[in-house]
Each structure stands twice: as C-alpha cells, then as structure tokens.
C-alpha cells in the first residue's frame, strides 16, 4: 500500500490541475466567443432584461399565454419536477383542480381538448415551451381580455412555432416568453 501511496497522491494532484483547472478555464475561454458569452441568451424589452430565452418563467395572468404548471413555481435556483407517481391520489386531485381552474378561465373550451401539458408539471420546473396546441387553446381568452382579433393571435403563434431540428428531431414548440413579449408589442 505505502509503495502506491506516493504515486497516488501525486497523480491526484496532477489530474486535479489538468481536469479541474486547465480544462474548465479553456472551455470558459471558448465560451466567451460563443453567442451569449457563456452566460446564456437573455430576452429584453426596451433594454431591460425580462428573462432568459432558454428558461421558463411563470405566466398565470389571463392576458398572457400561460406557461405549464411547475413543481417549484419556476424557481430557477431550485429546479425540480413534481416526482409524483402516476397513481398518487393527491397528485390526481391537483391535476383535477388545474383542469377546473383552466375551464373557469377559458369558458367555452371543451375538457377533452385540454392538452395534458397545460395541467402537468415539467421535469425541470423551468420548461420554457408549450406545444402549438397548448398555445392555441388559450387564444379565445387572450383575444377577449386584450380585445384583439383571434386570427391575429393564431398568426402570432404560427410565427413563433419552432420546427423540429432538420425536420426530424423533437416536436414543434412555442417559446412562451418570446411569444408573450411579441404579444405585448401587438397593437
């Protein structure tokens, strides 16, 4: 054992310098050249940062496209999912309550048309996206509150729908923050 102790300690020190100091500093240097400078892309209105493009934030007011429920209330310093099991009775009551709330705020919507993502929490609690369907089902409400024509909102969703990568990977999505920024700019 003692024969191996000295090389073990020395190897650890060498490795520490290599992988924990040099390597991250090199990557941080490269990141300075990348878009966002390694800090993540922000979204601003009139020069004021209102959010990060890749991070969801809570939208619950009727005048905005609402984001998905979040187990951590969009706490970007404490990401987590609900971790509720599929048969947990308390969880199912929570989902039922979300459905009821949604129907109150969106009269005229059929229960069978509510997409599951609008009443289930994401894995990170910070999901920045909705499906185009989950945005479309909120159009009537927003049109009423904002006194805007519904087809203008539908068009806005279309403009903000992100296509799958190469047409092959992932579903179509709408970034809720960017959509709502654009919504505020509609006149």
């Amino acid at each position, binding site marked *: 054992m003692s024969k191996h102790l000295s090389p073990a300690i020395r190897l650890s020190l060498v490795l520490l310098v290599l992988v924990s100091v040099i390597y991250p500093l090199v*990557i941080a240097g490269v990141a300075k050249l990348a878009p966002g400078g390694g*800090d993540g892309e922000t979204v601003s209105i009139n020069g004021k940062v209102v959010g990060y493009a890749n*991070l969801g934030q809570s939208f619950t007011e009727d005048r905005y496209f609402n984001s998905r429920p979040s187990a951590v209330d969009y706490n970007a310093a404490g990401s*987590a999912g609900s971790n509720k099991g*599929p048969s947990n009775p308390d969880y199912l009551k929570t989902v039922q309550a979300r459905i009821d709330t949604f129907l109150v705020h969106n009269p005229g919507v059929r229960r069978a048309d509510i997409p*599951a993502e609008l009443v289930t929490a*994401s894995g990170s609690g910070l999901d920045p996206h909705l499906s185009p369907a989950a945005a479309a089902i909120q159009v009537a409400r927003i049109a009423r509150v904002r006194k805007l024509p519904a087809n203008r909102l539908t068009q806005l969703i279309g403009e903000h729908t992100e296509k799958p990568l190469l047409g092959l990977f992932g579903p179509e999505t709408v970034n809720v923050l960017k959509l709502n920024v654009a919504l505020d700019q509609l006149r």
Partner: protein
Amino acid sequence: MRFDLIGLTLFFTASMGLAILTGRYIGRVFRGNSTWLDWLGPLERQLYRLIGVDPNEPMTWQQYALALGTLNGVWLVYAFGMLLVQSVIPVWNQQQIPDMDWMLALNTAISFLTSTNLQHYSGESGVTYFSQMGVLMFLQFASAATSLSVGVAVVRSLQPHTSRNVGNLYQDLVLSITRVFMPLSLIGAIALVLTGVPMTFSSYSVIETMEGVSQTIASGPVAAMLPIKHLGSNGGGFFGANTAHPLENPNAFSYLINLLNVLLLPMAFICFVGDFLNRRKLAVILFTIMTGYFLALTIPIVTEELRGNPAIQSLGISQASGSLEGKEMRFGTLASAVWCGVNVVIPAGTLTGMHDSFTPLSGLFMLLGMQLDAFYGGVGSGFLYMFLYLIIAMFIGSLMIGRTPELLGKKVGIPEMQIASVILVALPLLYLGATGLAVAIHNGHPDVGWLSNPGYHGFTTMLYEFVSSAAGNGSGFEGLGDNTPFWNLSTAVVMLLGRFIPLIGPLAIGGLLLQKQYVPPTVGVLPAESWTFGLLLAAVIIISGALSIFPAATLGPIAEYLTQYHF
C-alpha cells in the same frame, strides 16, 4: 412522430459508426500504436515523471488492484474532506453555499467516486462552483478513467499468451485521461457551449419577470461538466433537474450531443474488445445481444409513455402527446422515453424526464435494465458484467454437453467460476437486502416521511434507489426523501460494494486466466465465437439476472400497473 423515428434510427446508426471508429482508436491507444494525438507523448512522459512511476513496469492483477484501491482511497479522502469545508474555500464560491454535513458529504464523495452520481444534494444550493469543478467533476474524470483502465486490463488478460502482467495501472489511467476522456470532453463541451449551455463563473443573476416576479437564475460552469458526465457513464448533473434542465439541455441539438456522449464509449468498448483481441465475431455477437436487449427494454418504455397515464386519461383531457408529467415539451414523450431507455441500460443514469412520474410498467423495464447493467453498460464496466455472464454461460453450456469449459483458449476453472457466481449472487442480495431493511424501518415508523408517493409506487421508490446504487446508475425516483441519515449511509455502503466487487472480481478472473496455458481450439470445446453460444449467453443473462429482480418487481411496478388498469 414518424419523422422522429427516422431521425432516431439515423442517429443510432451514426452512433454505431462512430463507436466502431472510436473502438479502433482506443485499441491503437492501448496497444501503443501511433494515433493523431501522438504529439501529447512528451506531455505524458512529463506526467509520469511528476507522478514518479515507470509506465512500462509490469503489474500482476493483485498489484494493479492494490494501486487502484490506494488511488481510490486517496480520492475518497480528498473529496470527503473538501465537501466538509467547501464554504471556506476562497475560489469559485459564488453564493455563500454552506458546508455539507458529514453523512451527505460521505454519500456524495462515494457516489461520485463509484461513478454512480446519486446526488442527494441539489446542484443549485448544495455545492459551490469549486466543488462542482474541483471535486465532483474531478471524480467524474477519475472514476471514468478507473472503469476504462480496469476494462482494458481485463481485455488484455484475455490474450492467448501466458503471463502474469495485466498492464500498468498508471499508464492505463493517464492514457484514459489524455487520449480518451479529455479530447472527447473538449470537443463535447465546445459543441455544447455553441448550443447555448452556460459556462461562467459569475454568481447567480436576478431578474424581474414579465409578470413582475423576481427570479433568481442559477448558472455556472455547466458546459465543462456535461461531456464527462455522459462520456464516463457518471450522470451527475450540474443542476438539480439534471439533463432535463433547460440550461443543461436547451434544444434538440444539445440532446443529440448529450445522448451521443452517453452511447459512444460503452458501444465503442465492445468494438475495442473485438479489435484488440482480434475476435471480431465475438464482438459482433456481444454487440447484437446488447442491442437486442437494449431495444427490448426501451421499446416498451416508449410505447407505455406514448400511451399515457390511464389515471390522467380518466380525468377526460387530451393525452395526444403521451404522459407529460415530469417531461419537457422540447423533447416530448418519445425522445424522453428513449433517453430513459438508454440511461437505464447505460449507468450514466441521467434524466431528461423524471422517472418517478413515468407510467408504472416503464419502472419495471428501468429496474431490469439497471440491474443487468450490461446492455452496453458503463464504459469498461459494462463489458465486465458481460464477461461475468460469459464465464457463467460457458460453464453451464460446457457442462450441458459434457465438455471442458474454455474461454478463448483458456480453461475456466473452479476459482474463476466461484468468483463470477459469487458476484452475480452478491449484487441482488445487496440491493434486495437493503430494500428489505428500508421497508422494515419504514413500516415500523410510517411517520418517517421518506415517501412522497404511497402504496406500490412507494415500494418501487425504495427498491429503485438501491438497485440504482448497486448498479452505479445513479438515477432515482426523486420523490424519495433521500438526504437523511439512513439513505445517505445505506446507499453509500451499497454503492461502494456495488462498484468495487464487480471491478476487482473480473480483474482477478482475468489475472487467473492469463496465467494459464493457451489451448488451441479443438472440436472438444464449446466455442465462444458462435451464434449458438450467443443464444445460450442471452438466455443465461435473462434467466440469472432478471429472475433475481422479478419477485420484488411484482410487488412494485407490476402491482401498480395491474391496479391502475384492471382493479
């Protein structure tokens, strides 16, 4: 959906192609042939001088194991100590994050040392940037190099010549870092930075959202940690939500890079085995078995998730996109389920969707995949499990037809068989015993408050935690209140045993086989390089491995499934 399937098929085909190339490259590295990184030679010689070792000094398997044990001991002491005092380390300490208590520190140190990455802390609030880079990522590199080195040493000892020398540990470790993990991590990290993954040492920023709420944004040197987390089959993410976090995995492009990093080296290692031993057919047979079982476990997870949660269905809403609790919209159900399948058979064990919220039957396939641990498996370690199954299958097969068991020209004797069978019995005993203990404690003190989900699902939660610990997977049903003395200490023990028993055992078997005389193949032996034997091997894996978890799985995911659908 149809396009997703085409995309994923193309992606897996491309991964296999890259794995073949990488496998050949690893073969050249460990045979000492020239590669495009030979300009690193002077640097490596400098490293050996600094370490104070001769990289060509032969080692027996015992010396190799002892040197490895010493190194891992040093790493454990270092990591444990640093996590205890992380708040006073003056550099890279962004948010006044407190020290870990000793049980959490011990669990975390062992968890990263063993390549498990169970993570009973939360990345945003539990560790400093220094701990992320200097302790956790350090261990991710170190443990990955350990797995690869032992894997290479075992493959080396399957060569036909007779020797006691399984190779030099220090050389294997240094080459693993400089020639494999470091170059691939650099490429991966730079690609991820370009997709928008942060790499910064600034403290968290605070913004006011459009609805006027204050939101604190945790960030950090994320891009550096991600490649080695996946390449080394580690799985410890920067943030609490792991690879589901939009800053770790912002889009489909980052998803593909991350998934490729998970798959590449475990697949490449099998190609390396065929290349290094010049036994291509053996590699093809092993690769086919692994791919077959990988698909057999992943496809049901995908179909179950796409079908949706029947309890949600009964609330009368649309589940057209599948079961979405705990999943992210940018990946959707299909890609989240595929990710889950890959990460249970390969013990990176990272999450893009929360396994706790997957439908009941998916949990069964997760448990099976984790526990067998050989369908590609971890880098290096996946082959070690497969090697144990090989020994058992060869012994059983040869006895059935009345021949002497031989593997690649070396007689398989009683000691080799004993080691292999003890390991394959010990591991289920370990996680089943520990689960039994947990259930006994929980039932004695129902107010202990571990479980956020009642009933069968609660049982699965505890079983999953121990299976994941024993297999070095590190994913979890995160509804478990796991930062408690019982879970921190019990999983620490299970992780240590679950790591080092299946690491040292195959090394010993390899060392014993290497000392034996090579016997040229005759008609009197069962050849390992035949599809008949491959079929037997596949049967032995499923019979010996799957049966050990089935009774427990009946009480967990199967019972939950049956009650959801039929009662």
